């Protein structure tokens, strides 16, 4: 299926989300644009402070205000700009058309209500069904996410669940209304590898069963992206640096940052290197971003103009975008 046959589910256009911190403005998300098609898993990778989580919260319009605000941009979901909606209309979208799961399964559930209550609550709010129907649906969802004895476990409180089970409950909650888009914000970061494998597998499996939601997977782990995503966007310094099909990205990363990131990962499957390749320097502070390319200071191939002028996000080859002055698409990408 070529990508033009597919419908755009979510289109981000030049999204800017700023935070006012002690009289200064932190441009956490600074002009982010990308599209998510129906029925795809889209990865958004970046290091801490790159703005990936803020991007996802902006889509849900869950930016805490103050200090944060969505400055400008468009978030088109099925053609409708979410930023134009009233709060009441937005609420109909949240949990129903777009739902979200969070990083910390320990704190993301309300400790004083039962799992069942929290599951039913969303179901009843959106579908206006009876309590018994909601209960049945909740049981069904818990069963689907692989929690044994779901009807009894509905009566449990979150603290009686382990971390992995809580994340399962969160997934059940998020998918109970068969949303078009599931945003998963670092869903496995707090979990162990074996549990991470379970949860990732579950997410993909359950969305197929509930109605083929697209998934926006936010993570810092390139390996997770490689295993689960169809397409990926790499963020750095509040901006998208590269968008690509996953396979292409891992085969020939274009942006120097992506290249550096990939080569700095230890690869047990490859011949052992004595030393890892590194990206020198430190991640720039969100409070004081350089004017030019955000990566220029750490970039091995930076030229003087990189520090001065911000490069545009250009389509290098069809479907591949890169924000770099020095990538021309004719083999500019260095295969590693």
């Amino acid at each position: 299926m070529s990508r033009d046959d597919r419908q755009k589910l979510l289109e981000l256009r030049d999204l800017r989300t700023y935070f006012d911190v002690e009289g200064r403005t932190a441009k956490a998300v600074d002009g982010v644009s990308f599209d998510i098609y129906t029925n795809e898993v889209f990865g958004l990778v970046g290091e801490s402070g790159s703005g990936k989580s803020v991007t996802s919260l902006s889509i849900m319009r869950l930016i805490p205000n103050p200090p944060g605000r969505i400055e400008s941009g468009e978030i088109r979901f099925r053609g409708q700009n979410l930023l134009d909606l009233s709060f009441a209309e937005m609420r109909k979208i949240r949990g129903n058309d777009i739902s979200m799961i969070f990083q910390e399964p320990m704190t993301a559930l309300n400790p004083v209500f039962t799992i069942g209550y929290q599951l039913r609550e969303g179901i009843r709010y959106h579908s206006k069904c009876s309590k018994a129907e909601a209960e049945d649906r909740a049981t069904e969802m818990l069963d689907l996410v692989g929690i044994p004895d779901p009807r009894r476990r509905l009566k449990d409180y979150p603290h009686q669940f382990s971390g992995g089970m809580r994340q399962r409950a969160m997934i059940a909650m998020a998918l109970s209304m068969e949303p078009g888009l599931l945003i998963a914000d670092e869903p496995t970061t707090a979990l162990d590898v074996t549990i991470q494998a379970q949860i990732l597998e579950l997410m993909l499996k359950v969305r197929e069963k509930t109605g083929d939601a697209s998934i926006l997977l936010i993570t810092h782990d390139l390996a997770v992206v490689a295993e689960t995503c169809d397409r990926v966007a790499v963020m750095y310094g509040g901006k998208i640096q590269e968008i690509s099909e996953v396979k292409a990205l891992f085969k020939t990363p274009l942006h120097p940052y992506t290249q550096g990131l990939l080569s700095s990962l230890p690869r047990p499957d490859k011949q052992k290197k004595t030393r890892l390749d590194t990206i020198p320097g430190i991640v720039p502070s969100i409070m004081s971003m350089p004017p030019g390319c955000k990566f220029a200071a750490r970039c091995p191939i930076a030229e003087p103009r990189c520090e001065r002028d911000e490069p545009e996000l250009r389509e290098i080859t069809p479907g591949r975008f890169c924000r770099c002055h020095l990538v021309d698409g004719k083999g500019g990408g260095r295969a590693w």
Partner: protein
Amino acid sequence: MISYFVRRILLIPITFMCITFLVYFVMRSAPGGPIEQARQQIMMQDGGGGGGAAGEDLELPQAAIDQLKRYYKLDKSKPHGYLIWLGLAPDEDKGDRFSGIVQGDFGRSYLWSDPVIETITSRFPISIYFGLIGYFATWLVCVPLGIKKALNHRSMFDTGSSMAVFLGYSIPGFVAAMILMLLFSTELIGCDWFPLGGFRSEGWDDMWAKGEVWWCIKDQLHHTFIPIIGYVMGGFATMTILMKNSLLDNLGADYVRTAFAKGLPENRVVFVHALRNSMIPLCVSIGHAIGLMLAGSFLLEKTCNIPGLGLLGFESIVGRDYPVIMGVLVFAVLIKLVGNILSDIVLAFVDPRVRFS
């Protein structure tokens, strides 16, 4: 969890004995005990207070002193006397029966010669009346105010009401009652609306007997108003700020974001999810409030001349009425200990996470 509560309840008698023994010990060791008291009374009667130095032992016959000593168990060692008082050692005067606190025998008051237990139980409901109304009135004021302050954090309303709350914090309850009495019970500003202290008017019981129910209720409320404001003032600043901060903390919690992400409306998120959590520390305050109720009552009952347990305690100390002092102490300690456990029970009830261990 059950073993936790069993442990707590087992600790009550231990705590109780430690405290009462401490006070018993202090009072037995102190000068000016009952013998001195009786001696002075006799001197007052005999010499009309004329030049009788307290040091002269001649005025009280040795036999009488011995009798008094025997009566007050001063001839026993302190631990022995304490055990008799507690009812864990036989009392010779009562035919070697065990008769003490454990059996509900608190002795007789020096001042009124009534059984202490009767005096206390007749006064206790009055303290409870003010304490409970005061506590619930505090809730009625603090919870809505705290919520509104939290939702309008750093607004004009928040800052302005904070000023008032802090003023309330810096004035103790009995002082506030005194100010109110000055303003509304005297002719100072021409608003002589409320009575100057007292629990009820003089003829209340007669009117009640006559069936003047409305008059009685009105009179009672009339007398209740100023002390209750005093009670509320005593705790409302702490509680309002606790409510506000607790709600603010919870509104920033992750689960609130989850609730919004489910598409719930703001009211539901704030008033169901966040509020339910932020009530936990307030509910736990109930035990402390019960303890404070009594501490506050010493001052407020003195100020407003309400014949409750606090005033009884005060009068008994002034009159060196040891059986009553000990009786009030027993009550105060028990109330406090029960209050602590009550707090734990409430906490276990409102917070499903709590598993005492």
